[in-house]
């Protein structure tokens, strides 16, 4: 399909995203693997854009991974989500912003279920009151955190210290955008750009000077598959999905991959390492892999944040080739230093994967 056709499709899938006063709910996986990304999000929204962003320390997991590994019943998950809404209500807020894509999909599924089955919503309200004496209002606006960054992508571009451009050649960086499946595959109208041609990350890439790569397996799952990764015996499923994507994107020579789901960047990063060690295959140029980023990390780099405070040292695939292309200065000696500058040693080098 030509790009003009896609733009028309994107226009059919617009959504309203609140402008201010956000109730932010963290992601179990993003906190575990990319805590620097959540810090960057709060800084961008609160400090750079001067918006109100609130968090309640008493919020918990939405149980989404428990729900999608089928150990947690739907009724339980709905009531846990109702409790999260209760915290938002207590804070006097109505614009709910989850960091996690699984959560976002689940909140969407639950709100849709309640709309179609009001008696279920009534039951969940009774459950919540019985268990906690809490009541709640439903969010007026539900947006994933990447929707919020998309909304303010031009404001971020206006403050940019760096662009998604190779400073040595002037060439826009070629970017693979990978959207988490639960962002819009179940409810296309709840995602910016829909499910087939989501625009939420593509819009950021374009606004910040990069070029989005279209490739055959663009919409294929990263392979998390919940139980398919969490149980060791099933991990072949997970790595096979990622491998299919890497092989599909490789001919387009991407400079980087950007993601909006917290799990996808971890899998796309780690499975490149594993495939390299197992098969001696690299998907980037000269034996290098393709660096993988969260959208908060990319926004942070564009805004000039320190790569090591963003947490890029925790990626298995080195990020330095992208930093070098963007003309970002960094101190390699600080990469593996601790929070107070102390020496923590360095990770063992992989056998095949090339590190800077």
């Amino acid at each position, binding site marked *: 399909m030509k790009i003009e056709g896609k733009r028309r499709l994107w226009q059919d899938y617009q959504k309203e995203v609140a402008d201010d006063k956000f109730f932010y709910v963290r992601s179990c996986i993003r906190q575990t693997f990319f805590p620097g990304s959540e810090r960057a999000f709060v800084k961008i929204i609160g400090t750079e854009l001067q918006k109100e962003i609130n968090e309640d320390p008493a919020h918990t997991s939405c149980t989404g991974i428990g729900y999608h590994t089928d150990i947690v019943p739907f009724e339980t998950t*709905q009531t846990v989500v109702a409790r999260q809404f209760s915290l938002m209500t207590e804070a006097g807020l109505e614009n709910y912003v989850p960091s996690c894509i699984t959560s976002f999909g689940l909140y969407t599924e639950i709100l849709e279920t309640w709309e179609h089955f009001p008696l279920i919503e009534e039951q969940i309200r009774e459950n919540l009151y019985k268990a906690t004496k809490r009541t709640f209002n439903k969010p007026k606006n539900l947006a994933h955190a990447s929707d919020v960054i998309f909304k303010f992508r031009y404001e971020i571009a206006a403050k940019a210290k760096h662009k998604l451009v190779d400073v040595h050649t002037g060439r826009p960086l070629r970017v693979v955008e990978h959207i988490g499946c639960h962002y819009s595959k179940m409810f296309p109208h709840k995602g910016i750009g829909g499910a087939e041609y989501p625009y939420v990350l593509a819009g950021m890439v374009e606004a910040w000077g990069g070029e989005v790569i279209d490739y055959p397996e663009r919409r294929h799952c990263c392979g998390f598959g919940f139980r398919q990764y*969490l149980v060791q015996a099933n991990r072949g499923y997970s790595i096979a999905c990622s491998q299919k994507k890497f092989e599909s994107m490789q001919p387009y020579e991407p400079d980087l991959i950007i993601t909006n789901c917290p799990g996808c960047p971890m899998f796309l990063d780690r499975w490149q390492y594993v495939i390299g060690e197992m098969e001696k295959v690299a998907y980037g140029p000269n034996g290098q892999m393709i660096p993988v980023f969260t959208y908060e990390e990319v926004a942070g780099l564009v805004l000039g944040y320190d790569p090591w405070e963003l947490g890029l040292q925790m990626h298995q695939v080195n990020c330095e080739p992208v930093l070098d292309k963007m003309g970002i200065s960094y101190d390699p000696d600080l990469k593996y230093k601790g929070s107070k500058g102390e020496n923590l040693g360095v990770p063992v080098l992989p056998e095949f994967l090339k590190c800077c």
Partner: protein
Amino acid sequence: MGELFDRIARDVRLEEGLNSCIHCGTCTAICPAAEFYDYEPRSIVEIVQSRDDEKIEALLSSETIWYCGECMSCRTRCPRGNTPGLVIMALRATAQEMGYFVNSEKGRQQLLLKRVIGHNILETGYCVHNKAVVPSMHPEQGPTWEWGYENMQSVFEKMGANLDGEGTGALRKIPQEALDELKAIFDVTGGTKRFDLIESFSKKAAQDEGLEFGEGLDNEYVEKLISANNQHHCKL
């Protein structure tokens, strides 16, 4: 038509996920699991739609319903707006409530998931927590994760986490009052009952086969769940 079908049909996800399937196979064509496993979501929907209890019972005892990765790609492409992934979730719920899950190698893994993810949720308030991603159990995480794990406090502090701290922030300690509310919700809504059923059916399966069964992950039955693979799951 049958009692088993009627039970599954009471799950709202079946009503949401299945209008009337025309067996076109689009879901199977787009399904990542169908590419990897010997598996067709189309066939699962066909069996459920038949309302034949005998076939449904066989399905609940089979490996088949555990192959789905719940990515929900099937929903996007189905020309009738069905969601085979939701149908499978309804089947999995019944398989656990009635004990059929212990009849398959993949189904039995529910005990492992309950003891890892379920434990995390109720004990920490997180589904996944960085302390639970132990390098020896996760070699795929690579040497960088191992380095970060060994130097957790400093590395995570540098990235802005509030590891086990009071107040807000990533990986904060979730207050006990919040964990108590979570547990109360599980008790009221059937979450605790589901966990207990997974435990009791698994214990019976272990006894039937003479396998050691204890708490946690360090016992014969659970160790087998972690890596068991009969090599009959994939197409190749």
